[in-house]
């Protein structure tokens, strides 16, 4: 179960400095998407990129703080990313949609606030579906395309980075390898 080691809490200076940078990339991504008038939020690219580069704690903290700052509410989205971009997409989508739904139910009577999603909500409730299902589908319908594209973009950017950055930030490597070469995570 080597992949479980990825979740051990390990945060060195590089990881700490990376968190605000991921937040900044989140915002820049969103700003660029708005500037290009694309019909998506794309406000989580930095979070996911941070998760790919440096593991779930950096990604999670960055995502958490981005949400804190942008919405003014506390939205407990922990984004954990195993490798493989389909996995990333499905996981983010599940976490984002499941994480947001209770919040939506508590604050917004189950609505997501996006007209297209809320229209689905309306239809479902009138068809006598329980509120929480309607709320989830509402949120999910909005999150599905957004998180898919976000994950895709993040992975594309990661592939476009020079190799040494990928090694440098890799906080979730197992400790010292056989040769005694110290991995940066030990710093």
């Amino acid at each position: 179960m080597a992949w479980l080691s990825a979740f051990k809490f390990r945060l060195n200076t590089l990881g700490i400095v990376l968190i605000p940078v991921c937040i900044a990339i989140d915002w820049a991504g969103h700003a660029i998407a708005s500037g290009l008038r694309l019909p998506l939020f794309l406000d989580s690219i930095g979070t996911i990129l941070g998760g790919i580069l440096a593991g779930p704690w950096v990604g999670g903290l960055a995502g958490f703080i981005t949400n804190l700052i942008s919405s003014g509410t506390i939205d407990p989205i922990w984004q954990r990313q195993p490798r493989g971009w389909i996995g990333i997409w499905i996981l983010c989508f599940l976490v984002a949609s499941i994480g947001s739904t209770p919040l939506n139910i508590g604050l917004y009577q189950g609505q997501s606030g996006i007209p297209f999603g809320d229209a689905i909500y309306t239809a479902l409730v009138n068809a006598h579906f329980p509120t929480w299902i309607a709320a989830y589908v509402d949120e999910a319908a909005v999150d599905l395309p957004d998180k898919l594209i976000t994950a895709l973009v993040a992975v594309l950017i990661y592939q476009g980075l020079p190799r040494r950055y990928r090694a440098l930030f890799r906080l979730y490597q197992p400790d010292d390898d056989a040769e005694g070469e110290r991995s940066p995570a030990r710093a």
Partner: protein
Amino acid sequence: MARGLSLYAEGSSPLHRAHPLTKATLTLCAIGLAFILPSWPLVLGVGVALLSLLAAAGVLRRFLFVAAGLLVPITLLLALVQSLANPHNQTVILPLGPLAVHREGLYIGLLAALRIADLVAATFLFSFTTRPADLAEALMQRGLSPRFGYVIQSALQIIPQSLETADRIRDAQRARGLETEGPLPRRARAFIPLLLPLVLSALVATQERAMALEVRGFGLKVGRLARYRIPDSLGQRVLRWGLALAVVAALAARLRGWL
């Protein structure tokens, strides 16, 4: 050059001078009460109290200006959707083809909108009267690790800077022939060429910054002494505890069915 991200509005009202944790407690308790209290007069009462605090801090007009853009669409959407589609709907006010506007849903939607308005007012009250640096400092004096204080302080500065950088990259890429107008696929193709340079330079900077911080002693586990005094008082401490207790009491009362 962009400065730190903050809504702070200069001023010298008692609210501005209050300790950041007092204001944070006030905001969180107001939000708590707004969602715990069950009837609309009580929720409205919280809202009125917040509005008068906003006025006392001299930021009421600023708030109304900013909040209108946020709250009007939310209210309309909530009122509309809930009146059409809430499980408690019974009494029809206005039939609309296959759907109908119901009184119960309308009430529920408007009450939800009122709560959100309270939340927004409370959050803005905090943001307008508190310098982010003061909040970070207050938290660190109370024991927040300086490493996480750093994350907050750095995020607040780095976000506006990165937005500026994004603009500069856009201008540079456009000068090189990148198309940012036109049909959707063309605009979508411009996304990565606009974001990638920013990510690359940000990562280089991250490595160098982390090295420079280490060399200056970042992350040492020593007690962090106060950088500057943020005035606090017994009265404020009492107020903070009082507010927290009020919320707990309201919650207990609600759970017991007294409210």
